[in-house]
């Protein structure tokens, strides 16, 4: 009986600690930390078209549309793995504006990559110095964002997209 009285507070304390530890760590993946920009307006940017250096896209012009923003590079192997899925997204959600950013890549290599894999993007912007990616908080390719009609970021994924992610997390946004 005496022993039980002594041990009970200790057990309660451990239980409280475990509860809070589980509460803090639940659903948190250190490889995919939550974006600081989620539910915030997309950062201001201006980017030149990969295929036409006279054409520039401004972040303001994206408002009024749902936009998928994908950072890719020809040297990024996981980008190739997800690339074909953008054609599926394009087919399933035709109203979605798909914006690709060639990130820290040789422009010739980016064009070659899009020739080989196909070009699912409505606009391919250049981000040679990585400044746009920095403003988006990108730290590893590929990264994908979706913005709503108000220009707010409503989805972010680090790493290659999968069919499951598209079905469970992207399709439900529309």
């Amino acid at each position: 009986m005496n022993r039980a009285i002594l041990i009970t507070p200790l057990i309660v304390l451990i239980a409280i600690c475990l509860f809070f530890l589980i509460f803090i760590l639940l659903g948190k993946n250190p490889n995919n930390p939550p974006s600081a920009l989620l539910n915030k307006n997309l950062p201001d940017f201006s980017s030149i078209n990969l295929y036409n250096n006279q054409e520039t896209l401004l972040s303001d012009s994206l408002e009024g549309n749902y936009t998928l923003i994908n950072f890719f590079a020809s040297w990024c192997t996981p980008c190739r793995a997800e690339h074909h899925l953008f054609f599926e997204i394009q087919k399933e959600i035709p109203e979605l504006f798909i914006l690709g950013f060639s990130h820290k890549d040789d422009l010739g290599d980016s064009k070659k990559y899009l020739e080989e894999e196909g070009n699912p993007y409505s606009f391919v912007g250049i981000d040679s110095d990585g400044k746009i990616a920095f403003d988006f908080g990108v730290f590893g390719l590929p990264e994908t964002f979706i913005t709503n009609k108000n220009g707010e970021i409503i989805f972010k994924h680090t790493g290659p997209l999968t069919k499951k992610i598209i079905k469970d997390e992207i399709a439900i946004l529309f």
Partner: protein
Amino acid sequence: MKLQFFFKIFFFLFFSFSLCANENLDYKVKKLTLELRCMTCQNQSVYDSDSNYSKDIKIFVIKKFKEGLNEKEIKKILTERYGEYILFKPYFNSKNLFLWLFPFILVILSIIILLKNSKKTRTK
């Protein structure tokens, strides 16, 4: 002769100051980047990592210090983009209050329990 002496003193002071300024900058960059998490590595600071991401952050930090921003301002810019996850030491604010106070709550609770138990055992 006097002019030569004057130039010698001038160059000595000029290089000493620039050396000190560089050392000061290196120290500030090291101090800050040691507090920043390399987001693409396993538990490594930006300072210790050679990844492309860390190199970019180091360049950014040096640039911002040279522009005259202080540590707090640079941290703010980085957390606005990468979230507080980039900081090894989270901010002491209402959101993280529990995280900061929990160890102290735990110690106080333990002391209370210990005192209560020792009192009980003494009275018996």
